[in-house]
C-alpha cells in the first residue's frame, strides 16, 4: 500500500498515480507517515524563510508579497489598496493581483479572495468571504474584518502561503 503524500488516499502497491487526487506517487515502498500540523510547518517556514533582499523592489513599494512555494516576490506600489484572487475566464471579476500563475486554483484561492490596504503606516488585510478562508500565521480571520499585518507574517489564502514583507513607511 502506498499512502499518497498529497491527500492521504491509500493506493495499491505498484500504482504510479494517486487514484484520488492524481498526484504522482514517489515509490513502491510503504511509506511511514508522520502527522505534522499546519502550525509546525509555518513555524519551520518562518524560521527558515530567507529574508529576501528588499532593495531590489521598487523604492516606492509599501508591501511585498513573498510567494513561499515559488519564491517569487511581488512588490506592490502606487495604490493604497489591492485585491487578491485569481482570474477566471468568462467571469467579470478582476482581482488587482492575479495569483493564477502560482497554483492559486489548486491551493483553493477564491476568485476574489482578500484585500490588502494601507492606512498611514499601518497595513491591513481583509478576507472577502472566500471559500477556503484567509489565515494569518495559521489563525483564520473572520470575513470582512480588517486585521493588522506585521513584517514577516505568513498570510495564507486557502493553502497558498505568502510572507508579508513590509517596508518602513
Amino acid at each position: 500500500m502506498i499512502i499518497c503524500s498529497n491527500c492521504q488516499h491509500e493506493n495499491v502497491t505498484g500504482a504510479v498515480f494517486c487514484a484520488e487526487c492524481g498526484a504522482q506517487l514517489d515509490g513502491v515502498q510503504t511509506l511511514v507517515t508522520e502527522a505534522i500540523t499546519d502550525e509546525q510547518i509555518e513555524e519551520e517556514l518562518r524560521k527558515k524563510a530567507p529574508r529576501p533582499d528588499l532593495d531590489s523592489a521598487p523604492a516606492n513599494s509599501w508591501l511585498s508579497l513573498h510567494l513561499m512555494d515559488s519564491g517569487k516576490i511581488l512588490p506592490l506600489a502606487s495604490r493604497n489598496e489591492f485585491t487578491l484572487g485569481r482570474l477566471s475566464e468568462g467571469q467579470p471579476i478582476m482581482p488587482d493581483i492575479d495569483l493564477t500563475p502560482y497554483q492559486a486554483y489548486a491551493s483553493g484561492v477564491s476568485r476574489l479572495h482578500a484585500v490588502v490596504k494601507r492606512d498611514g503606516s499601518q497595513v491591513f488585510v481583509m478576507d472577502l468571504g472566500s471559500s477556503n478562508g484567509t489565515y494569518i500565521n495559521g489563525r483564520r480571520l473572520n470575513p470582512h474584518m480588517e486585521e493588522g499585518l506585521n513584517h514577516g507574517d505568513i498570510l495564507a489564502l486557502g493553502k497558498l502561503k505568502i510572507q508579508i514583507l513590509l517596508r518602513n513607511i
Partner: protein
Amino acid sequence: MSSAPLDYYGLLGVSRDASQEEIKRAYFEAAQKLHPDKNKAAGDTEIFLGVQQAYEVLSNPKRRAQYDAILSPEEKISLPYEYKFIYSRPSLIRLDEPQMFYVIVELQAPAARQKKSPPLNVALVLDRSTSMQGEKMDVLKATAIQIMRNLRPQDILSVVTFSDRAEVIIPAAYHQERTRLEARIQMIQPSGATEIYQGLEAGVKEVMRSIDSKRINHIILLTDGHTYGDEQQCLALASKLAEKGIGITSMGIGKEWNDIFLDVLSTRTGGSSAYIAEPRDIKNILIEKFDALAQTYADDVVMELTPTEGVELSDVFRLQPEPSPVSLETNRLHLGSILQDTSTRVLFEYMIHPKAVKSEVLAFLDGSLKVSISSQSMPVPLLRFRLKRPVSDSPEADPPPPEIVHALSRLMLYRMQERARKEIEKGNIDTATRQLETLASNLLSQGEKSLAQTILLEVDSLQKKHALSDEGGKKIKYGTRALFLAPPKKELVQ
C-alpha cells in the same frame, strides 16, 4: 526459395509446438485465402502449393518427427512486425496485499519494407433521421461526395442510410460513373427515427459482398441520436463482425447520442468511437478516418489470453493510434490495427494477488498474438509469448519508465472523469463535484486550460441541475481521451 528445406511452420503460421488441431485449422484458413480457384494473384499458387506440402508433412506425426529432426533448432520465426514490452517495474514484490503492475505492448511495422497501401472495402452507414436535417446533413453529403472522389480505383465503397429502415444508396462495387452516384447522395432526405441495427445490418451486407483478407474491411457508422430497443442486436452483430475481422468505427454528432453504447459497439471489433462536436467538423474527422484506413499496415490484431491464477487483468487501454478502451468481454482482445508510420501501443493493467507471488518467478501473461497483414499473402506466424517477472522480497527504488509514467498520467485523468460520471449516476453529487474539481486542477497544472474551463462550467451545472450537460459529459470524456496523443510534458518525464 533456397535449397534449404521450406519452413513449414512458418508457411502455416503456427509455432513449432502446435497441436494437430492448430495445424489443421491454420491449413484451412490459408487454403481458403490462397486457393487457386479463388485467387488469381501471381505467386499465390506457389505459396499455396507450399502450404499444401507443409500440411501434408506436419499433419502426419511420423513425417513431422522426421522433419523436426532436420530443422535447425535455434531458428527464430521471423515476424513481419516488431514488438516490444515495457514493464512498470523490473520485478514483482512478495506481498500479503494485492499489487498493481503495468505493461505496454508496442507493435510496429518493420522499418525496412515496401509501403503498400491496402485497398479498402468500406461501408459508410449514415443516420438520416429527422434530427439530421440542416447543416449536419449538408456537410455529411458534401463529405461523402468528396470521399468518393478521393477513392482510388482499387477501393470499394458502399453508402447506406438508415432511419427506421435502411436503404442502400450506393452498393459495394468499384465505381465508374461517379457523377450519377453523387446525385444519389444529393437526394438523401432526412426523415424518421434512429434505428441503428437497421443501418448496421445493411452496411454489413454490403461489406460482406466483397470481403477479402487483402482489403481493409470496415464499417463507419455516423449517428446523432439514441437507438432504442435494438442495442443487444447491434452488439451481437458486432461480435460476429469481430470474428470476421471487420472493424466498426462509430461517430456521434452533437450531444444526443449514446457514447457508452457506441463505445461498447466499436471496441468489440477493436475499433473506437469518436465525438463530433459541431457539424462542420464532420468533414475533417471522416476524411481523417479514411486516410487512416488507407494507412493501415496490419488489420485486426487479436491477442488471445490464457488466464493465470491470482493475476487479474483489470484494464486494457489502447494509447495510440486511436486512444480507446479495449473490450475485455472475452479472452480474445481486439487491439485494433497497426498503421504504416505510427506504432500501436496498448496498456495492460494487472492486479496481482498475494497467492500469485509465492514462487520465484511469475508468468503473468500467457497468450498469443494474431496479426493479419493485408499486403501479404503469406499467413503471419502466430506469436506466442509468456511474460515473466522475477519476484523479490524488497522493492526497487527505480521510477517506472517514462512511457509508463506518461500513459498512466493520462489514464489517471481519463479515469477521474469516468469515476465522476459514475458517481453522478449514483446520485453522489458532492463526490462527483470534488472529483471533477480535482480533475480540473490537474488539467490546469498540465497546461490544458480550455478543457479545465469546460469542466468547471460543468461543475456549475452539476450544482444546479445535479447532472452534467449532454454536451459537457462528452466533451470531457473525449477531451481527456485526446490527451493520450499529446506529447509528454517535461516535468512528468524528468
